[in-house]
């Protein structure tokens, strides 16, 4: 212990300034942990040379095929010996957090205790970009020990490589009035029933699920997950007239017009004279108390959340809640970034049967992906290659105009079975009307 600290003039620069510094943390660890002295040596070299010096490898725990991110140093001397031997191995354990990322202080401390007692560096990231708690920095010989202790505390490895990945859900029902379903239950249903695909990577490439309680999509599900579950509702926006009036009192007509009415993307909000207000099945209304009534045409509302965000509590999500499912969001590589595409415009997610349906859907999508995607191809790329219609057919999902921005504008297609498809549409319309 107490290896001599290495000079780190570049890193030292990052200790000044008001934002909390990770370098100060690294230095504190280095005082009692030789691995961190050498880690700082390697990091400083990277800063000096502007080059990374890690390579991957294969390190895992017994029974699993993924979840540990191995890192070996590439900084070697002329005899191929590591320049910073104590940090020559610096692996990360990806650990799945509780859904919604809730912790007690005891749990945080216990995690710190385990990490330092089992040879870990003492460095932890809350959290990685896919939501894992990242226990950063452990030698190969201690990986199993560290995992075993965390595992016995009730925590499990996350995903890495061509596998189901750790999932994320927003704070949702725990603290948000916009929540349209039980996000934590949905996450745990889908992830824990498909956990074998996380622990034993055998998919064409990564597969991510994310769960957002409303269209504000606070965990970025549409852009960053292969299957996004987004909370929504299909009845009318609820109105708490007192709250709307309180907003109106504070912000006046100017605020209401400029910030609420004119920013509605589908112009679904109008002002009418209260004396002439008629109402209707699909109209939500708030009497402003000055002779005007604000009317929302729910038939034309796209559930974008803007007016609910501006008048929290005054305008609220409806009571007939459920989810919209989108498939195929991903980052760059082969075809550039893609967003998820709607494959189910609305489904209820309340009863056990509803959750079972979500579970089945997720299993079907993973299976279809496993069978049909090329190597290193994400779900969004697969859909690009085979077309959405083929994907829907494979999943036995009906087509719906909510899946498109606009119908086809290219006339080059073949439509021998047009009449059969029209028949399908008629059946779909009848079944959804029932």
């Amino acid at each position, binding site marked *: 212990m107490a290896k001599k600290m290495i000079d780190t003039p*570049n890193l030292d620069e*990052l200790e000044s*300034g*008001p*934002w*909390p*510094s990770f370098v100060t*943390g690294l230095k*504190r*660890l280095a005082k009692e942990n030789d691995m961190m002295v050498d880690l700082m040596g390697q990091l400083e070299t*990277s800063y000096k040379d*502007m080059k990374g010096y*890690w390579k991957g490898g294969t390190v895992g*725990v*017994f029974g699993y095929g993924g979840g540990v991110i191995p*890192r070996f140093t590439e900084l070697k001397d002329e005899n191929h010996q590591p320049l910073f031997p104590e940090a020559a191995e610096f692996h*990360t354990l990806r650990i*799945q*957090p*509780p*859904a919604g990322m*809730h912790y*007690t*202080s*005891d749990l*945080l401390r216990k995690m710190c205790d385990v990490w330092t007692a089992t040879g870990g560096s*003492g460095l932890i*990231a809350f959290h990685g*970009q896919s939501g894992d708690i*990242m226990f950063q920095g452990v030698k190969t010989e201690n990986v199993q020990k560290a*995992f075993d202790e965390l*595992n016995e505390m*009730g*925590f*499990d490895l996350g995903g890495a490589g061509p596998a189901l990945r*750790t999932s994320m859900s927003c*704070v949702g029902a*725990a*603290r*948000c*009035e916009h929540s349209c379903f039980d996000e*934590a239950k949905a996450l745990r249903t889908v992830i824990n029933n498909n956990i*074998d695909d996380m622990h034993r990577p055998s998919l064409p490439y990564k597969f991510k699920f994310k769960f957002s309680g409303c269209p*504000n999509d*606070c965990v970025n*599900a549409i*852009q*960053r997950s292969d299957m996004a579950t987004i909370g929504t509702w299909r009845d009318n926006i609820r109105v708490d007239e007192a709250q709307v009036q309180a907003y109106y009192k504070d912000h006046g007509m100017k605020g209401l017009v*400029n*910030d609420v009415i004119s920013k509605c993307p589908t112009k679904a909000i109008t002002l009418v004279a209260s004396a002439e207000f008629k109402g209707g099945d699909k109209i939500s209304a708030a009497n402003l108390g000055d002779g005007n009534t604000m009317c929302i045409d729910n038939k034309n509302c796209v559930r*974008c*959340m*803007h007016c609910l965000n501006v008048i929290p*509590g005054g305008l609220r999500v409806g009571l007939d809640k459920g989810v919209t499912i989108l498939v195929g969001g991903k*980052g*760059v*590589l082969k*075809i*550039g*970034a893609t967003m998820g595409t709607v494959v189910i415009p609305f489904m209820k997610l309340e009863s056990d049967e509803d959750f079972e349906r979500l579970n089945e859907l997720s299993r079907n999508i993973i299976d279809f992906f496993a069978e049909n995607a090329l190597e290193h191809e994400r779900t969004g790329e697969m859909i690009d290659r085979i077309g959405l219609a083929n994907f829907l057919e494979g999943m036995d999902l009906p087509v719906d105009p909510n899946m498109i921005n606009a119908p086809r504008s290219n006339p080059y297609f073949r439509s021998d079975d047009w009449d059969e498809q029209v028949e399908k549409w008629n059946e779909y319309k009848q079944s959804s009307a029932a």
Partner: protein
Amino acid sequence: MAELRPPIESGAPDPMPYMHPVMVKNYGKWAFHSHPKPGVLYHRAESGDEIWTVKAGTARQMDHYTIRELADIADQYADGYVRFTARSNIEYMVADGSKVEPLIKALSEKGYPIGGTANSVSMIAHTQGFLHCDIPGTDASGVVKALMDELYDDFVKCEMPNRVKLSTSCCEINCGGQADIAIIVQHTKPPKINHDLVANVCERPSVVARCPVAAIRPALVNGKPSLEVDEKKCICCGACYPPCPPMQINDPEHSKIAIWVGGKNSNARSKPTFHKLVANGLPNRAPRWPEVAEVVKKILATYKEDGKPWERMIDWIDRIGWPAFFEKTGLPFTKYHIDNWRGGRYNLNASAHIRF
């Protein structure tokens, strides 16, 4: 060898045992929220129960002393419960409004900035960089620390037209994600191939298949099986590097930083959007990345000045148009801003809609 035990495949843990009891009690039954001041949220349940949240910035990768300090603050001032946000801010929840100010004081005294709520610039979502990535063109924690020092005021105040999300990625694969302003390394030179190693390290067909522009072909070099790159076709994306490290893409001099704006994950008002390129060729200059900070601050200042309430960065740009964005920020517009990737023509202006 020590005895090995099979893992307990417990998956994602139940959050309920770690959740503040008021949040457990009112799970799914919240009615109202407000924003009493920067860094503080107030939520009221249908039952009338209340909870206050205090949000503080962290360095994301923390030593265990820092985590223990945050846990001690939770015990002393915040009922023993915390949660983390998707952008690595820590949130303390208290069921008693009188606990808010002492909590803020305790966090502030230890150097944790209070903010990140509503119309602030939140903590930068970021990747691993030099600390742990095998293909980083730069660091991430360092860029973020340097930038958050500069944007500190914008984190602790809520003076932007709407919330601003930032992200940093240390290569073009962009693990940092989409954001109002994204800071991403852009490689500018084709990979340098170490032909002595390719045959031993790389599965050549899978490297060939990985290239999005079909610029890589198998080749014999000095009598050994290797790969070659058609440098005219190569877009310097670096996708060949992970399956084949002898194709070195990182370059201390020619890895530059690009800035992208207008990404938005929320469906509010407009549909979700991807961020778009606005600046490129900025030097990747540790340890403070001053040129990057300058461009980011210029964009933020222009948005703050010109954006209207509730306009996210892309809403503002959609209103004023891209020519005005480049004019107001003073950023140069080049041929590289015109998308020529698959489907890129959909981004071109096929109308006479022009602002003069």
